């Protein structure tokens, strides 16, 4: 299981600097949180790692392999999988078919449809979704669709998983369940996780280290505790200007 790193990754969209030289490191088996206000470049960074966007400059390394020039499907085959912020299930397929496609085409390349469906069932039961496996994916609730995203990412056999706001938009009960579930899965399947959220709760609970982005630049990095007490972070989140801080 290799370390995933971005090295001074910048991205420009038509004159707008979406990312300004962001360097992060995700050692094997660790959990890194990536937080920041809306529009801070979190999703762009994730898309660059997953191969959906190319960086304007900088590099993405998986161990000793440079991966930023590779297409997204090749990156999946190297063991890096991403979930979508807005779930994108194959709506006309059943839940288990959705997962089995990822088993077939992911890193493990289990081409036999029966075996891949069995593996899909195993993952769905790990995620507590047995009862949903024969339903069309379009009929799932938002929370279930987010779980399906995670199931598909796991199904590719990835050892690095990029989670784009899987904990967003959940009620507090659902959030608690999801965090518990995530820990359970982590116990059974080993992988490194890069968790992107704009709400901090889940990230601060799960991540060992946290990187904070603001307007495309990294403004803080540290343990969850260090980050929440960092002044720059507080300013970024609460939107205080230097001269109008309270008191």
């Amino acid at each position: 299981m290799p370390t995933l790193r971005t090295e001074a990754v910048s991205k420009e969209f038509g004159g707008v600097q979406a990312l300004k030289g962001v360097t992060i490191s995700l050692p094997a088996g660790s959990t890194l949180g990536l937080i920041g206000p809306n529009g801070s470049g979190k999703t762009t960074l994730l898309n660059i790692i997953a191969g959906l966007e190319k960086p304007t400059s900088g590099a993405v390394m998986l161990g000793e392999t440079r991966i930023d020039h590779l297409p997204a499907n090749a990156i999946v085959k190297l063991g890096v999988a991403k979930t979508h912020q807005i779930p994108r299930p194959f709506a006309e397929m059943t839940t288990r078919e959705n997962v089995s496609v990822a088993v077939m085409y992911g890193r493990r390349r289990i081409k036999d449809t029966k075996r891949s469906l069995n593996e899909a069932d195993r993952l769905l039961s790990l995620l507590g979704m047995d009862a949903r496996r024969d339903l069309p994916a379009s009929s799932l609730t938002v929370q279930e669709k987010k779980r399906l995203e995670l199931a598909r990412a796991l199904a590719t056999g990835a050892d690095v998983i990029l989670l784009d706001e899987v904990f967003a938009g959940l009620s507090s009960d659902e959030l608690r369940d999801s965090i518990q579930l995530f820990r359970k899965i982590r116990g059974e399947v080993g992988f490194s996780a890069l968790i992107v959220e704009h709400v901090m709760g889940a990230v601060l609970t799960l991540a060992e280290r946290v990187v904070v982005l603001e307007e495309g630049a990294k403004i803080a990095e540290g343990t969850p505790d260090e980050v929440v007490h960092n002044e720059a972070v507080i300013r970024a989140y609460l939107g205080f200007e230097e001269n109008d801080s309270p008191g």
Partner: protein
Amino acid sequence: MVALAVILSDLLFGIMLGCVFAVVAHGLNLIWGVVKVVNIAHGEFIMLGAYGAYFLNVFGGFNPLLSAVVDGALGIFVGYAFYFSFLHRELRGKERITLRSEMVTLVSTFGLSLFMSNLAVVAFTGDFVGINWSPGTVALGFLELPLGALYVTILAVLIISTSVVFLDRTYIGNAIKAYSQDITATQLVGANPTKVASLATALGFSITMAGGALLTVWIPTGINPYMGALYAPISFVIVVLGGPGKMLGSLLGGLTLGVVIDVLQAFVPVSLAYAVAFLLLIPVLLFRPEGIVK
């Protein structure tokens, strides 16, 4: 009694004709449904399949059933060539097909259509030709069914059902189905979108050209460079009737059109029967643009 026999035989012939139409349309449906490109030159590839069967018959003594197999194999190569010359530039790296790409492919395949039918006039002359193949008839009560048409019907149903099972049950079929629903999500489970889209296009062409060969049984003197101008609209109507991207929709649309045309022929001149059949397109597009079945 006589009238009933006529209607019954028209119905039966309509079903058989509909199955052949269905195959021809199925190739279009696959490309339309998966790659989201409407190939205006579709009819010319049917024509190519029909001429393929004709020349295989003239020079190799092949019957249209055998030719359908050969055409189907050739269609794979033709489909790949089509994908990489007409679609690849428009689809490469895209999350979904853009309006601009839709226009580009519509116009470029329209150009291809004109080019192919005119080239066919030069290569094959404008003469109408046909394949002389009559394996006899079989009596079914008071009806005499031509065996050739019956074999063609069986092969047609076999082609469509095999393709449906292929899409549902196989490694490659699953990726094609996934691609038809979400290109980026397909890429993010590890499938190469170019490989999937080009393969789906190749399959579509394979089926289209095989369909062209099967069609020759129904047009004993009707193979000509401009035949695409009739069979492309028929295919479009069938795909719209059945719903683009619905694989069994081809069969349903084909049967509907075949029966409508054949039964109408009992009452009105042939050309009017086709006109009425095409008229079906308007209410379906207006009221059920997703096809007649949900």
